[in-house]
């Protein structure tokens, strides 16, 4: 007779290897969980999972699509990592993306019948500024009016989408567009250069990679990065150390908004080529998962953005082959985050399983 004794102990410090290993556990559990849900819905789980995770990237086109969708996710998540590391809950990146796209798109429309090398850089800068300004709203309200940034940044998502809607059906709609809710097509100079003929992956990917490198440098090699990390670990310590809390909040929101704005212009000057209502399949929200899955680490985020991008592609393929709604991508995205958060338990607690013989218990 053996009894199992499970004892849970608090760890004193978090092992780094485990910290970066648990995301993989979360991904595996998500795939298993997805299989169970598919089975419950009456699909062959192996086949459904194959359509989800293998079919989409089994050719060059699919691989280009993977990078295409990972680009905005990676960019936004990099920005968010600044906010989250410093305990600022910006969850309105979707709104900042939309507003960035509006400002960038406005510039592109100014030049709709012109060509020139300077147009695209102008659009990109405008987009970054647009996102930055939009992110400043919750930041200013938080710093000067003590307002909850979660709710404000979220409410602004709806506002920005309504502004976009107003513009594309009203003043900015294409005069030759038969009243479709869309603007003119941007000129060729306003479009992101494609990397390969026939594939949609575009130069925006370099902006994302640059953001990864810059954020790594800022977070790990500068005083600002140090301040951000300390504030995230303990606000009291940060105050005691004399860090200017308000300025830092404004800065992290601006960085985050600029990244989301860049993602927005990347979409409209890349695959879309104009403004219309549906410029983002909730990249701004999904990027929150990417940021966590990547452990708020710039290089982790690259990996996480590829994984989450695959759930988008998988949802599209599954819709075509299995006729299940595209929203199922969100089931996987939600599950990844659930499992990731749950597996964090292993980081903070040690689970010891002791096997004892009955007579050792003293009876």
């Amino acid at each position, binding site marked *: 007779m053996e009894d199992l004794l499970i004892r849970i102990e608090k760890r004193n410090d978090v092992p780094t290897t485990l910290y970066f290993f648990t995301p993989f556990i979360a991904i595996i559990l998500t795939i298993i969980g997805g299989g169970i849900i598919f089975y419950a819905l009456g699909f062959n789980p192996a086949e459904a999972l194959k359509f989800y995770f293998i079919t989409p990237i089994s050719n060059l086109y699919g691989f280009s699509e993977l990078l295409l969708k990972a680009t905005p996710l990676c960019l936004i998540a990099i920005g968010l990592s600044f906010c989250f590391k410093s305990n600022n809950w910006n969850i309105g990146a979707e709104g900042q993306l939309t507003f960035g796209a509006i400002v960038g798109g406005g510039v592109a429309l100014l030049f709709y019948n012109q060509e020139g090398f300077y147009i695209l850089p102008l659009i990109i800068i405008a987009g970054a500024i647009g996102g930055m300004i939009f992110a400043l709203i919750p930041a200013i309200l938080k710093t000067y009016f003590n307002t909850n940034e979660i709710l404000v940044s*979220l*409410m*602004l998502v709806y506002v920005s989408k309504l502004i976009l809607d107003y513009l594309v059906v009203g003043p900015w709609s294409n005069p030759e567009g038969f009243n479709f809710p869309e603007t003119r097509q941007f000129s060729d100079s306003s479009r992101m250069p494609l990397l390969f003929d026939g594939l949609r992956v575009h130069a925006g990917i370099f902006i994302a990679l640059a953001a990864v490198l810059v954020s790594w440098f800022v977070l790990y090699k500068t005083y600002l990065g140090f301040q951000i990390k300390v504030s995230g670990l303990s606000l009291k310590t940060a105050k005691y150390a004399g860090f200017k809390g308000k300025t830092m909040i404004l800065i992290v929101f601006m960085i985050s908004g600029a990244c989301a704005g860049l993602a927005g212009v990347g979409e409209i000057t890349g695959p879309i080529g104009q403004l219309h209502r549906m410029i983002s399949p909730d990249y701004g929200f999904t990027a929150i998962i990417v940021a966590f899955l990547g452990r708020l680490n710039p290089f982790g985020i690259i990996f996480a953005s590829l994984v989450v991008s695959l759930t988008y592609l998988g949802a599209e393929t599954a819709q075509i082959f299995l006729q299940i709604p595209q929203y199922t991508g*969100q*089931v996987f*995205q*939600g599950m990844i985050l*659930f499992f990731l958060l749950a597996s964090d338990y292993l980081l903070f607690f040690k689970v010891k399983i002791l096997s004892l013989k009955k007579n050792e218990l003293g009876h």
Partner: protein
Amino acid sequence: MSLDISFIGILIGSIMASSVPLILAASGELITERSGVLNLGVEGMMIIGAISGFALMVITDNLFIAIIVSMLSGVIISLIFGFLTQSLLTNHVATGLALTIFGIGLSAMLGRDFVGIPGKDFPILFSSLRESIPFFGPILFGHSIVLYFAFALPFLTNYFLKNTKLGLIVRAVGDSPVSASNQGINVIMVRYCCILYGGGMCGLAGAYLSLIYTPQWIENMTAGRGWIALALVVFATWSPIKVLIGAIIFGGISILQLHMQAVGFRIPVQFLIALPYLMTIIVLVVISRDSRKIKLNTPTSLGRIFYKEK
């Protein structure tokens, strides 16, 4: 348009109907938050309630079962949140977001066979009185039982929190979990109960949408109401009666917006639709400026993880 008295009565009646899901979800979330737990999964729990209620209505043809199941499914899905945040000590904000994303996806997955099926008429009470009394008829009568329940709920919640021992325990757990725990209260247990209760109310709020308000299933049909309900709790500074007032204001804006569109008001439609969101921000700014005011009712331990060494 004639602004006669009976029209205003009907208008008020429709404003009340549109505020019901907000009252239900916000009252549920209020209890959750009062116990110190911030659940951002309201939207996800509502949409799960909406689809499970509608699906059960189609399958069993019984509205009572549908309502009960919608609440149960809200409870079950909030159990995920409870388990993660209370037993595995995860971050409330991130877990709540995951719940919303997961709920919207899962509801679409479950609802794929129910799109386009017409709903059923939900029985309304006192329908004869509604027609016979001019102004008060459409306001007081001819509503579903859920509406009457929703309008009573803030008062019940208020009584529960202020006048009952259990209410005191909930507030103690939210304000000072450590002291509550030292008094022998099982903090984790209380928080679990409050989370599940909040889930049940959000499930009911979703079922109100899919069974009564617009009886059909549409993907993502909660359309941000869960987030407004969350904002409403802060808007009301965690006071149940103010939740009721806030919900009527927000319901009112969404109904007036429809009427203003119909009359051809010279304001872009999008601006009117954005009004409730902008209002929330403005109100948040106004109430948050005075930190004493907001601290008076804010559960002190809101969103913080409670861990007791065993």
